[in-house]
């Protein structure tokens, strides 16, 4: 396949994929895109931007570039507006521009460069038409070379961007839609870990906007500000000026405003800027100027009011018939924000260079607003979830008393089982163990059994660890039966132990119960006896035997009475407690239905005021008796103490010998082989004896055995298994989230970093190349490089030297072009949705003539694109070079407006509009001029 055909196929595919345009080779149709073969070259006619591009293969270093250039120049001549052009051949959308695109074979690049350099040096023709080439390198085919170098003259990216509607642009600008697209399939990468998959799925569902809300009809497109007319009074050097822009007959119109220095171009520019945008680059500089005292910063008064005014006046701007009051941004931040908003609408003089010079953070703020909000949100969300799982784990650990450092699953299971077992009342009570260990010694008959049982309980407790370990093993392997068995066995052992303990306690009960009454009051007798023994050595008072006998007799009677009183008191107190419970717990409900009937005997107590009254009076009676018994007891106790003291003072033991013998018999088991008297004499041993007597009377409660230990073991094992599973999940969660966060971060970073080069950068660089007349001479390719995702920096670097800002590689003119390209990129992506105009103040200042002509061709194509798509726009250009202003007005068939110096202070600036195209002259369609039969008749 010939080079030309290869290129044709490539370019047709590009048009199709990017703009959905078909390439026709039939000249008879009114196709918007036509390919015409012409001997060894071809014409590509693109109606939308009015470009007739001659495609010329450069296959021999002897090929004369001049021939192609002259041919193209000749065609360009014939495409100029002509008189009396047939209406069918006229092109109302503007003049077509002509370009040449060489397809330079590999190995011939050097020759071509040399040849084109010669032509550019010798001839001014090279500026008349767009000269471009694809330089095929060794081993490359045409498509690869075009892909690498682009086809900037065709403005494919610019036109594709132009097709994007206002409501779709935010998505195009930001990486959100691509991130959303990625998120839809993101969980799939965790398909081997179902838990992670679920987490990722939940995350995506939480973050992704509802599809239903996406489908909601968009808001209406916001109205765009037109540019109809501006009237300026007392503004800088302008006394009065009025400029009309509106032309309802032209969809896209250029207004080229030319004037020598000092005629007010920049003042008009700023007036437009302030009126439409509320800010201006100069206003920002003023507000940012540290040399100006903040309180004196009144821009309108100190700067805009004419210096030459001899009468008080204030600046006025009337845009589209509405006077703009309070148009100024109040703070430098407002002014800065305003200038960002106005990017793509107003381009101030020399500001273009700042674009490439912008520092990374500032550039990122300027370009990346809302750029990766979804990526930020989803990662923030994932990180929050990851953090929450750590907290959840920590809380869970705390709740289950586990150490965060536990990493072995079996150890963790042991601790969990231990915790669960400890929650159960399965351990023998301390009182039982104490009773078994100590009190049993007072019961010689059960001593051995008690010791055995105590030892068995000890063993059983020690076996708990083994039980837990074996359970943990079962849980670790997920076998519930294995986990259950040791617990069931351990609980069975406990049941047996409980039975045996109960038997033992019963035996002790049978021993102690008969003695219980006898032991009542024994302690005070032992104290009296002990105290008497301790005082035997002291001097005794005189007394008669009769008196002593009387006292002893009284003591015995009193003691007897006290025993009776205690028994009565115990009965009455039991009765009182019964009545109290009855009153509180039973009677209220009973009395509702049977208020008069006694629940015990069934008697009707209606006559006595009902059962409640009966019980109440009974309770009162019992309480009275208790009080009287208590008082009597106290009185007798005091009397007894007096009598015992008196008897002791006579040297007589207050406990009779008979009673002493009874006590010895009664308390024999408690002191065994020891002497009771010696124990009583020593207060410590006496206290121990008393304690033993008390303890012997307090028999331990023995728990009921567990009816079905197997079932209980199963329940607990299941509970532990569930806990372990939960623990397993919680242990794995942070790791899973970490994995998700890492994957997400990687995916988002990849998308976010890739998105900018694929969208805004491609658009910007295409325009920059379209504005560059000899792009093959550019030192490098500039590219956006994003550093970091959160609070990113954006550097415009070059591919060859990573991290080094591009501003160090390009000269001032090139930097200017790139800044200007950014303006148009912003117009296509932002400005055009808000305003129907673009205003540029002297964008040609740093351009050589060839570059300026490229700029004019770009403006020509851009306006034509608007015209063809019926999108109204106005391009206002202030230029201070007459020749260039003429060039621009001619290329765009625009208005040519001349400003000249004000003749008088009170007159309007001298503004004249000149008609460059004579009436009756019209541009022609390229197909009319270029088709072979037309060429031959030239």
């Amino acid at each position, binding site marked *: 396949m010939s080079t030309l055909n290869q290129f044709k196929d490539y370019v047709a595919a590009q048009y199709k994929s990017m703009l959905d345009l078909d390439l026709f080779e039939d000249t008879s149709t009114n196709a918007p895109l036509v390919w015409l073969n012409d001997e060894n070259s071809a014409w590509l006619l693109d109606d939308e931007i009015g470009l007739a591009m001659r495609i010329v293969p450069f296959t021999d270093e002897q090929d004369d570039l001049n021939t192609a250039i*002259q041919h193209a120049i000749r065609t360009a*001549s014939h495409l100029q*507006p002509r008189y*009396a052009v047939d209406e069918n051949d006229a092109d109302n959308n503007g003049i077509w521009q002509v370009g040449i695109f060489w397809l330079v074979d590999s190995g011939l690049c050097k020759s071509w460069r040399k040849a084109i350099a010669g032509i550019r040096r010798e001839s*001014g*023709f090279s500026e008349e038409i767009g000269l471009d080439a694809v330089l095929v390198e060794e081993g490359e085919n045409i498509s690869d070379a075009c892909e690498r170098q682009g086809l900037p003259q065709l403005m494919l990216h610019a036109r594709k961007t132009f097709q994007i509607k206002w409501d779709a642009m935010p998505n195009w600008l930001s990486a959100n839609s691509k991130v959303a697209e990625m998120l839809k399939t993101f969980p799939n990468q965790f398909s081997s870990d179902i838990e992670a998959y679920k987490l990722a799925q939940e995350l995506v569902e939480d973050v992704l906007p509802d599809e239903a809300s996406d489908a909601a009809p968009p808001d209406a497109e916001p109205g765009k500000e037109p540019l109809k007319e501006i009237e300026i009074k007392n503004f800088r050097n302008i006394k009065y000026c009025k400029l009309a822009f509106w032309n309802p007959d032209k969809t896209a119109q250029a207004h080229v405003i030319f004037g020598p220095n000092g005629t007010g171009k920049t003042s008009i520019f700023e007036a437009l800027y302030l009126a439409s945008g509320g800010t201006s680059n100069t206003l920002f500089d003023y507000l940012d100027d540290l040399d100006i005292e903040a309180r004196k910063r009144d821009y309108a008064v100190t700067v805009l009011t004419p210096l030459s005014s001899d009468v008080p006046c204030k600046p006025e701007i009337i845009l589209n018939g509405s006077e703009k009051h309070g148009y100024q941004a109040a703070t430098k931040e407002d002014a800065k924000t305003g200038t960002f908003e106005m990017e793509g609408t107003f381009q101030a003089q020399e500001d273009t260079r700042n674009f490439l010079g912008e520092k990374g953070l500032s550039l990122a703020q300027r370009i990346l607003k809302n750029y990766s909000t979804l990526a930020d949100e989803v990662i923030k969300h994932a990180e929050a979830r990851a953090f929450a799982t750590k907290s959840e784990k920590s809380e869970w650990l705390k709740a289950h008393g586990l150490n965060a450092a536990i990493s072995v699953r079996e150890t963790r299971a042991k601790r969990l089982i231990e915790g669960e077992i400890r929650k159960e009342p399965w351990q023998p009570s301390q009182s039982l163990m104490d009773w078994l260990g100590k009190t049993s010694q007072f019961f010689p008959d059960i001593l051995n059994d008690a010791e055995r049982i105590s030892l068995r309980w000890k063993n059983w407790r020690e076996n708990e660890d083994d039980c837990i370990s074996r359970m943990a093993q079962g849980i670790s392997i997920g076998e519930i039966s294995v986990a259950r068995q040791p617990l069931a066995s351990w609980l069975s052992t406990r049941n047996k132990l409980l039975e045996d303990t109960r038997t033992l306690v019963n035996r002790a009960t049978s021993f102690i119960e008969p003695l219980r009454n006898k032991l009542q009051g024994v302690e005070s007798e032992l104290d009296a006896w002990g105290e008497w023994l301790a005082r035997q050595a002291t001097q005794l008072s005189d007394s008669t035997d009769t008196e002593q006998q009387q006292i002893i007799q009284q003591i015995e009677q009193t003691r007897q009475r006290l025993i009776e009183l205690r028994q009565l008191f115990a009965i009455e107190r039991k009765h009182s407690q019964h009545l109290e419970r009855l009153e509180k717990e039973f009677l209220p409900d009973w009395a509702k239905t049977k208020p008069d009937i006694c629940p015990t005997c069934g008697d009707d107590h209606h006559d006595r005021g009902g059962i409640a009254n009966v019980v109440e009076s009974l309770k009162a009676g019992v309480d009275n008796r208790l009080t009287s018994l208590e008082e009597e007891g106290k009185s007798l106790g005091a009397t007894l103490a007096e009598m015992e003291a008196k008897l002791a003072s006579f040297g007589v033991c207050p406990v009779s010998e008979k009673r002493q013998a009874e006590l010895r018999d009664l308390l024999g088991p408690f002191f065994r082989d020891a002497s009771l008297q010696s124990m009583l004499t020593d207060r410590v041993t006496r206290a121990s004896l008393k304690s033993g007597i008390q303890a012997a009377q307090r028999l331990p409660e023995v728990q009921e055995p567990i009816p079905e230990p197997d079932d209980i073991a199963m329940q607990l094992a299941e509970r532990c298994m569930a806990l372990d599973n939960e623990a397993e999940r919680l242990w794995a969660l942070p790791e899973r989230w970490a994995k998700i966060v890492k994957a997400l971060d990687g995916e988002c970073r990849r998308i976010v970093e890739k998105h900018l080069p694929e969208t805004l950068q491609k658009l910007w660089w295409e325009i920059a190349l379209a504005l560059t007349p000899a792009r093959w001479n550019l030192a490098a390719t500039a590219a956006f490089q994003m550093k970091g995702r959160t609070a990113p920096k954006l550097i415009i670097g070059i591919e060859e030297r990573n991290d080094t800002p591009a501003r160090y590689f390009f000269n001032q003119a090139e930097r200017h072009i790139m800044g200007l390209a950014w303006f148009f990129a912003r117009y296509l992506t932002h400005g055009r949705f808000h305003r129907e105009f673009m205003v540029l103040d002297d964008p040609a200042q740093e351009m050589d003539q060839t570059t300026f002509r490229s700029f004019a061709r770009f403006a020509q194509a851009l306006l034509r694109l608007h015209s063809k798509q019926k999108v109204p726009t106005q391009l206002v250009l202030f230029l201070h070079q007459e020749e260039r202003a*003429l060039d621009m007005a001619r290329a765009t068939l625009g208005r040519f407006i001349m400003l000249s110096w004000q003749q008088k202070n009170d007159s309007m600036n001298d503004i004249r509009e000149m008609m*460059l195209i004579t009436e009756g002259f019209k541009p022609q369609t390229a197909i009319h001029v270029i088709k072979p039969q037309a060429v031959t008749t030239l």
Partner: protein
Amino acid sequence: MVFSDSPLTAVGWSAEEEYIHDEIAAVKQQGTLATTNDCLSIIDPNWKPDNPPTGNTHHNKLAAAFGVNQADCHFPTSCAGNPTTDQFFQWLQTRYGLERLEQFAQANSQGNAAWSTKATELSNIKDQFPEPMPTDWLNVFFDDFLAVWVRLCCNAGKVVYIKNVPIQPDIIATHRRDDHIPWGYENSIREDLLAVIPLILSLRGTPPANTTTKWNFGEFPGALWDEISGHLVLPLPAWHGNNIPIELAAIKPLIDGWNWSHKGMIYKVSILPLLPQPNHTPVNDDNFILRSSVAQLMKSSRFSIPNNIGIASLADM
């Protein structure tokens, strides 16, 4: 190749180039050199017998090739009242130019008495140049104007080489000012050259005695410039259908070549449409065809408006 087939062959300035010597040697080998009318003139302030850097002798060698010696062929310039080399060659060019124009007028004179008259008038003017006349405006006319005019016509597609077959403008890289288009071979149709005959004769006056003119041909190559009145006249080819504008390729190098900022104020710009006719016929441009062509290339806003450009005729000159 026979030199005598060409009316005049002027080569180099010192004839040092090897290829010239090789060419002459080849012709000599054919045995045709100096056999008929071939003659050699070496125009140089000095006789240069040797060329030390290359070791070649050239003036001697050339003379030997033609069988003459220094006395027969050397004309020393810039000495003893002789003209300078530049003046000599300008004079030679003027005579040559007049002769070519005369021949083309003569070639068209069959059945056309007017052309015959013009041929005679040109011949008379040529006779006014028996020797270099450095102050005569015709020298500058042929040196600065005619070369540019021919290039303009050629670029505009107005030059017919063979009848009805115009020279395609893109055949010759005419936008480069050093490229010179010959003033015609015998059998070619040169309407571009015919069209300037009335201009020359008009400026020469009747009788053709005006050796001075108010028009400056050197300041704006290809145009006539009256510095006193600030009037710039731009002759344009107006034949072969003047509904077709003058091509950008033709007129652009012309206008680019004018360094406007250093020429002083231009008050008036006129187009002088020329036709290949013996008697000048004024051409109207009611539809602004020609004026629009020029206006679209003008670098000042005033003359960018077709209405501000005038149409001149020879009577106005």
